């Protein structure tokens, strides 16, 4: 009986330790599965070769993530995109992988992009992230991408930016004049911007809709990547086609990396996420089974 009692009252610190392990281990090294590949050897004999292939968890992609992916996939190379990382370290858990996944896709498709942020920490974090990724895709700051840095007042900046890009953001994050950068060649106003993506933990995307997507509907589309707490409020913007799609929390980043066929921070986090969910469900079921068994045992004792 005391085993059943123990299973119902496991010390919470054991649960905390197990949760830490289930989250930390997949982050250390992607889960690999030993696989045997049967091939024909030189003499035609069966020749098994052992390999450690990463265990790829199946991911079903939600429509709103797919729409963002299709939109970027359909953009012709060398078109111009405005990426706006409006988030701070506090929501890095969800907005970080989203920014990384979107950057990878833009770089993979050879699309020029500029970054602007209305949160003081946005430019610092996104600059470091872009520098980390640019070598993998042969991107160079100033040539293929640039960072326009932090702008204090979102409304005033957007009103000026749509009319005159160079006037509103004369210098980039490192102080170099924007006019001299090849990435901004031919970019005069909002008419030259094909897509705007706002990555945020607040409702800053509504200002983008009001000042950029609304007045320039015919040639400029807008997408968003939001934390899972803020995403429900954006649903009616997606259904009214003002937002062509929206990445929802860490799951959106996981789905996007799955579409890209890349295993970045989001894919590693997916393994931790799934393992942690299984751990929680396992302990809920364990507690209930032990309780029901103990109740049945006690009822049997009462009858005797």
């Amino acid at each position, binding site marked *: 009986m005391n085993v059943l009692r123990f299973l119902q009252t496991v*010390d919470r*610190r*054991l649960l*905390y*330790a197990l*949760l*830490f*392990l289930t*989250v*930390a*281990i997949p*982050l*250390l090294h992607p889960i690999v599965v030993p696989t045997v590949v049967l091939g024909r050897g030189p003499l035609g004999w069966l020749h098994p070769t052992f390999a450690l292939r990463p265990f790829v968890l199946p991911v079903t992609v939600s429509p709103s993530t797919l729409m963002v992916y299709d939109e970027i996939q359909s953009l012709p190379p060398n078109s111009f995109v405005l990426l706006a990382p409006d988030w701070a370290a506090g929501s*890095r*858990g*969800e907005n*970080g992988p989203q920014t990384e996944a979107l950057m990878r896709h833009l770089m993979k498709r050879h699309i020029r992009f500029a970054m602007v942020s209305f949160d003081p920490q946005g430019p610092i974090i996104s600059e470091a992230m872009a520098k980390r990724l640019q070598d993998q895709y042969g991107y160079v700051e100033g040539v293929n991408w640039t960072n326009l840095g932090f702008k204090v007042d979102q409304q005033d900046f957007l009103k000026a930016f749509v009319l005159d890009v160079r006037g509103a953001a004369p210098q980039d994050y490192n102080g170099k004049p924007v006019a001299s950068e090849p990435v901004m060649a031919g970019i005069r106003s909002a008419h030259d911007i094909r897509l705007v993506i706002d990555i945020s933990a607040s409702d800053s995307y509504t200002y983008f809709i009001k000042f950029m997507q609304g007045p320039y509907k015919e040639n400029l589309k807008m997408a968003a990547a939001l*934390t*899972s*707490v803020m995403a429900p409020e954006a649903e009616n913007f997606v259904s009214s086609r003002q937002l062509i799609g929206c990445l929802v*929390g*860490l*799951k959106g980043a996981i789905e996007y990396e799955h579409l890209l066929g890349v295993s970045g*921070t989001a894919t590693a*986090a997916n393994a*931790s*996420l799934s393992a*942690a*969910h299984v751990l*929680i469900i396992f302990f809920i079921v364990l507690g209930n089974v032990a309780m029901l068994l103990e109740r049945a045992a006690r009822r049997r004792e009462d009858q005797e």
Partner: protein
Amino acid sequence: MTGFSPWLASHLDSLMLWIGVFCTLGFYSVLYRENRVYRFFEHLYLGLATGVLLVEAWNDVLLPKWFDAIFKQGEWWWIFASIVGLMYYFIFSRKLNWVARLAIGFSLGVTAGQEFQAFTNNVWPQIPKSFKPLVPHPALYAPNPLHLPPKAAEAAHIPLLYPQVTVPDAINNIVFTVVLLCVMSYFFFSFEQKSRALKGTAAMGRWLLMFAFGAIFGSTIMARLALLIDRVNFLMTDFGSGVMGPPGPLIVFFILFALCGLMLWMSLRARARGEGTDEPS
């Protein structure tokens, strides 16, 4: 002082990592139980947060909107705002605390007055969104002279009166409306739920509430785990690789693994000795 600035600038990143790790592990010690290390970081955190409150109150509100408005633009009447603000401090005097009540009365009035707009913004748009057709019917286009079939009408951009309602749509709408009615009936307080029908809908309302709360609990877990994954990533990848290079994450993992073992050993020892481990040291 001249040597300090370049030193600080060059060591800024590693200093930030070390401070971040100490703060993170200091706070995670509460997972074992409340202890001196946690208490120290809790009070430091309180001081920093209150300091930032003071700084933001001055830099973001008082400096631009009050100090500059008066002494730069000459709008002297903003002094009344600071007078009303200072009236709050009369609360400490027994005789004159009505002065504080006057200022509190002003703030109460502002809050109460804005509630009308809050009510309309929060709830009003949701009422027309709840008008859902319960019976399936084909798509209906505006009456057009040629009586075009739906496909051709759509091609000819004739305005759509009612979108098509399929059978699954109708079932979903019925479920939506029934849940809305039952849950709302649970929140009526002023009449006795004598009749069986009302008692039934209220009980159903409470079950549907639990159904909804289970869904909210399950869907929120993802966001919280994402933050834990970010913290563990910060400890292992940012700090580990940043300070100890490639083997860093593994080293940090084993250090944390040892700390977990220590925590479990101490709680098992405390449990064996029969003392409740929940007594703060």
